[in-house]
């Protein structure tokens, strides 16, 4: 071998060694030291479960934080007698073992409902309920499935009769809401609203517990590198970097529940064989006209404190827009999106990466151009948000 060749060979080895070291440094960079800027740490803190503020009171529901009402609400939540066939309860679709979802594209009660079953964990923080926000309180939402022919298929007269007359509920109802007097004006509608208010008091207790992601943020803020390494893998951390950065997920999935509870058209295709769902543009009309809304006669706030409803936005921009779901506890809650169009998280992430034009309205999301490896890392990070629902069964 000539001297020149030897020299070239040595240079090549040196270059390769430096490249290997650089690659190695890149691999360990996320772990030690933590790769975050001060601004990013503040973003992580904003997603941390410890940043979740205390639940604000619900002035429209006088028993919202009454433990007695919550206990009654829990019993009603699991009671199949509030259905036309005696077989459907709230828990038929909102199954505790599945993070209060059902594993189906669309809810299945008496028949198939119109949309995918939302998890109700942490939902008490949302000003709007349902995928299209057609309800503005937990109690008002709880009433709708009872009378939906595809869900419970019952009616308010039968529901009120059960809750005000049956031996196991009669006394509790009386203690909480006063004796039921059928001769009073609006007796049935008022008592029906009370059923919703008791169920809402139970649902307000359904909160997520800390996940590995939360442990990571706690360790990061504490400067504990061992605890950081124990909480998240390198891939999960890289996924988190993408989540709050290049992948733009955080724009809608923000705050400690990883949702802004607002409405966005992200170009999700319609359910096979169905015309595209109009979403929020129809939902906002419904909630404004709803007799059980915040400003209606059955609200305990007498029409006050209805700022969200009063300033609710309407109009064409909301065509095909649906409420951002929380990303906490995605595990065991497939399929995803408003009609369960996507079976896996990977499929959902590919949808956002491509961001094709919407069938109706316009897709707010733009193509991301992420690699399949990056999409896997985001999926890994989402897995770190899994945690049991905080113990709440009374």
């Amino acid at each position: 071998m000539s001297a020149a060749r030897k020299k070239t060979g040595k240079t090549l080895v040196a270059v390769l060694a430096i490249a290997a070291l650089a690659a190695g440094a890149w691999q360990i960079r996320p772990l030690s030291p933590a790769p975050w800027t001060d601004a990013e740490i503040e973003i992580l803190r904003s997603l941390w479960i410890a940043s979740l503020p205390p639940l604000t009171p619900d002035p429209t529901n006088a028993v919202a934080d009454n433990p007695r009402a919550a206990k009654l609400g829990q019993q009603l939540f699991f009671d199949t007698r509030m259905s036309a066939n005696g077989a459907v309860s709230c828990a038929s679709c909102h199954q505790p073992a599945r993070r209060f979802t059902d594993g189906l594209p669309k809810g299945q009660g008496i028949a198939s409902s119109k949309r995918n079953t939302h998890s109700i964990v942490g939902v008490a923080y949302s000003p709007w309920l349902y995928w299209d926000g057609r309800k503005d309180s937990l109690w008002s939402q709880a009433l709708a499935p009872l009378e939906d022919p595809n869900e419970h298929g019952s009616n308010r007269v039968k529901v009120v009769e059960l809750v005000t007359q049956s031996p196991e509920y009669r006394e509790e109802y009386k203690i909480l809401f006063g004796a039921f007097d059928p001769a009073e004006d609006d007796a049935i509608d008022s008592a029906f609203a009370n059923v919703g208010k008791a169920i809402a008091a139970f649902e307000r207790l359904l909160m997520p517990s800390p996940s590995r992601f939360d442990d990571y943020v706690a360790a990061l803020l504490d400067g504990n590198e061992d605890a950081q390494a124990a909480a998240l893998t390198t891939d999960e951390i890289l996924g988190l970097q993408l989540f709050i950065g290049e992948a733009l997920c955080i724009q809608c999935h923000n705050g400690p529940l990883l949702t802004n509870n607002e409405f966005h058209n992200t170009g999700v295709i319609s359910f096979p064989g169905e015309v595209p769902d109009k979403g929020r543009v129809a939902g906002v009309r419904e909630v404004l006209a709803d007799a059980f809304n915040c400003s209606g006669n059955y609200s305990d706030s007498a029409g006050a404190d209805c700022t969200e409803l009063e300033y609710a936005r309407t109009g064409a921009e909301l065509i095909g827009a649906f409420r951002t779901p929380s990303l906490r506890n995605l595990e065991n809650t497939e399929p995803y999106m408003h009609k369960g169009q996507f079976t896996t998280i990977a499929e959902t992430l590919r949808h956002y990466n491509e961001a094709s034009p919407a069938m109706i309205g316009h897709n707010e999301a733009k193509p991301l151009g992420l690699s399949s490896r990056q999409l896997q890392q985001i999926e890994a990070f989402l897995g770190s948000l899994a945690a049991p629902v905080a113990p709440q069964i009374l």
Partner: protein
Amino acid sequence: MPSKLIGFVILFLLLQMSALAADPEQEWSSHRGVYKISFEAELDPIEINRIHAWVLTVRTSSGDPVTTAEISVLGGMPMHDHGMPTRPRVTEYLGEGRYRLEGMRFHMNGRWEVSVTVKADGKVDTAVIALDL
């Protein structure tokens, strides 16, 4: 050359950021210079996902308070082609050119533009308030 370009871009962004820093005394001139508008948000700093009120102050270009303004407000994110999640409106005149604006809510971090259109004495003009949340 690319590093120089990057340097200029960074400098430009820094200058932009400093221009957008919160300043209670800051006024925004309307497009044709008819009005000067300033605001004070009930939340300081403004947080996303919380509905809140602003107080808008409207003055003429010479600094006199505008007492009979009809005001309409539209907001949105130019990067995302969408508006605000709420429809805010002025609910009360507070005197001295100050107006209570209710129903403000932002639901994403990033660049927002709030267009305030003022009509008074037959003169209509719009100011755009840029916010980085």
